[in-house]
Structures are given as structure tokens and as C-alpha cells.
């Protein structure tokens, strides 16, 4: 397991848990990162306030890779602007592209996401696009220069789990980049299941932010993701469609 590294855009990671930092108090970030064993944390870019005392960067441990997202972008052009601003903020060249036109279900716009990926990959960004799990779109993202694909499990913030399971499995089977399941994962058991399927990593935010004890839930997710990864590497056992198969020796006992 020590050599089981996750490589995104040439960078090596040992943790397969990407932590979101939204919807909770900044003071909890450090504990969440530590207890989740996370090496990547997402951030958003927003209009700055004057005279601001607290800055999120002060709460994130130094060895953690920052993954700014382009949330708020409604098209490729806006996502590109947000990504460039994020890079100018001076925390590396990773970017998670998030483009939404729909405000009710917050579904990503795959077509605009492909366009933004192409532009930003050419500018040297490590592009991690959030997407609706569609194989054709995922192939276009690969060709556009994405460093991973991030299909949604269920609508953002819903905690409803692997609603798109079948289609995520297709991406895992067909796409050669890390497939990182993002959005909708609500419980560690769901994260574990996605990892058993062969997902490269899990991204979660709301599941932790809405838990009663955030650092404890972060730790539970960290362990579930690790367990799922081990199960995937071990190769899960076969499923019988009918009947049973004894797991004890079939020699006679207590009878003639």
C-alpha cells in the first residue's frame, strides 16, 4: 500500500480523499485535514472583503495541495477567468472546473467544461473537471488535456450517494485518467463502495460539513476510502447468482 500512489498531472499523492472546505468554520479546517488524512483541499474564489481578519489560507497546513474551483462560472469564459485569478493568488496551478447553468440541480455543463479544459490545459493548468458522468464527454475531456475526471455521484450537497453508479463504472472501465467521484457522496460506506469499484479518489464536503462531529466524520471517510481502495486492489470475491457455497470443509462430522 505504501507504493500505491495517486498521480494527478505528474504530482504524487498518498491520500485518496479530497476534502472540500465550504460550509464550515475555518477553525475546523486543520482538524478536518488532519483527521481525514487529506493532501488536497478545494477552495473557491470570491470577491475579497476589505479589512478581512481571517483568511482560509492561514488555516490550511503547508504540505496540502490547494485545488481552487471555478464555482460561480456559468460558461467556459468565466471559468477560465476564475482559474487565472486563482493561479494569480499564488497557490499552484491545480484547478477544478465547475460550470453550472442550472441553479436548481447545480448540474455541470459538460460541453462548456470541455471548452474550458482545453484552454486551461494549454496554459499549463492541472485541470480536474467536475462533470456529469457521460463517456463521450469524458473522452473529450481526456483529449482536451484533463488530468483527471470528476463525475458526480448525485446532485451537489445532496448526500444521496452513488445515484450514477452504473455510469461512473463505465468511466472507470474506459477512461485512463484518475476517476475521482465528486459530489453527492453522503456516507463513508458510499465512499468505500466507489473505491471498491475502482474510483481513484473521493471528494467530499457536505457529508462532513453537515455531520455533527466534522473531524470524526473526516476520519471515518479517510478509513472508508482506504478500506475500499484495499478491497479494489485485493480484487473483490465473486457473487453467486443462486444457491450457496460452503465456506467450511465438506467432510462428514458427528454422523456415520
Amino acid at each position, binding site marked *: 500500500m505504501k507504493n500505491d500512489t495517486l498521480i494527478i498531472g505528474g504530482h504524487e499523492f498518498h491520500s485518496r480523499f479530497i476534502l472540500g472546505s465550504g460550509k464550515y468554520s475555518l477553525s475546523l479546517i486543520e482538524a478536518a485535514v488532519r483527521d481525514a488524512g487529506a493532501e488536497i483541499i478545494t477552495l473557491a474564489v470570491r470577491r475579497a*472583503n476589505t479589512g478581512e481578519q481571517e483568511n482560509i*489560507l492561514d488555516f490550511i497546513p503547508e504540505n496540502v495541495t*490547494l485545488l481552487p*474551483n471555478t*464555482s460561480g462560472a456559468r460558461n467556459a469564459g468565466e471559468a477560465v477567468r476564475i482559474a487565472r*485569478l486563482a493561479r494569480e*493568488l499564488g497557490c499552484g496551478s491545480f484547478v477544478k472546473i465547475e460550470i453550472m447553468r442550472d441553479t436548481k440541480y447545480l448540474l455541470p455543463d459538460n460541453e462548456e467544461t470541455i471548452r474550458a479544459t482545453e484552454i486551461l490545459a494549454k496554459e499549463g493548468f492541472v485541470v480536474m473537471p467536475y462533470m456529469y458522468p457521460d463517456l463521450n464527454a469524458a473522452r473529450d475531456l481526456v483529449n482536451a488535456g484533463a488530468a483527471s475526471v470528476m463525475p458526480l455521484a448525485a446532485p451537489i450537497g445532496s448526500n444521496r450517494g452513488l445515484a450514477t453508479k452504473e455510469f461512473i463504472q463505465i468511466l472507470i472501465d474506459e477512461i485512463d485518467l484518475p476517476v475521482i467521484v465528486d459530489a453527492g457522496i453522503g456516507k463513508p460506506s458510499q465512499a468505500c463502495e466507489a473505491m471498491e469499484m475502482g474510483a481513484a479518489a473521493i471528494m467530499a464536503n457536505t457529508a462532513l460539513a453537515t455531520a455533527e462531529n466534522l473531524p470524526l466524520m473526516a476520519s471515518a471517510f479517510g478509513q472508508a476510502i482506504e478500506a475500499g481502495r484495499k478491497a479494489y486492489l485485493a480484487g473483490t470475491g465473486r457473487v453467486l447468482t443462486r444457491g450457496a457455497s460452503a465456506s467450511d470443509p465438506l467432510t462428514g462430522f458427528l454422523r456415520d
Partner: protein
Amino acid sequence: MVKINGESLDAAGRTIAAYLAEAGYDVAKVAVERNGEIVPRAEYEEMTFCDGDTAEIVSFVGGG
């Protein structure tokens, strides 16, 4: 007038560095876009806001 973060402000003629300091931004923690283009940090001292400019001043916040 200069439209900064959606608000029309009387900042024309001031350098970006001067405006950021006056308004109370933490210069190390913001990025500036002027008329749709990133302003590199090294240009804050020389670049001046002009009447009719649009600017965005952003920083990182928590997000998923």
C-alpha cells in the same frame, strides 16, 4: 468612476497598489483583474485605474 467588485467607486487616477492599501485589502491575499485581464502583482505600483474601468478583486474562501 471605476466599477470595482460591482460597485462604482471614485478610484480613477489611483494606482492599483494605492487603491488596495487605501481600501484596506490584504495585498498578499488578493488577485486583481482589470477589464477582464489579470494584473500581475508586479504591476500594482505602476498600473493606474482609468475612468470607466471594471475591476475584480478576489481572494480564496472555503468551497467544495
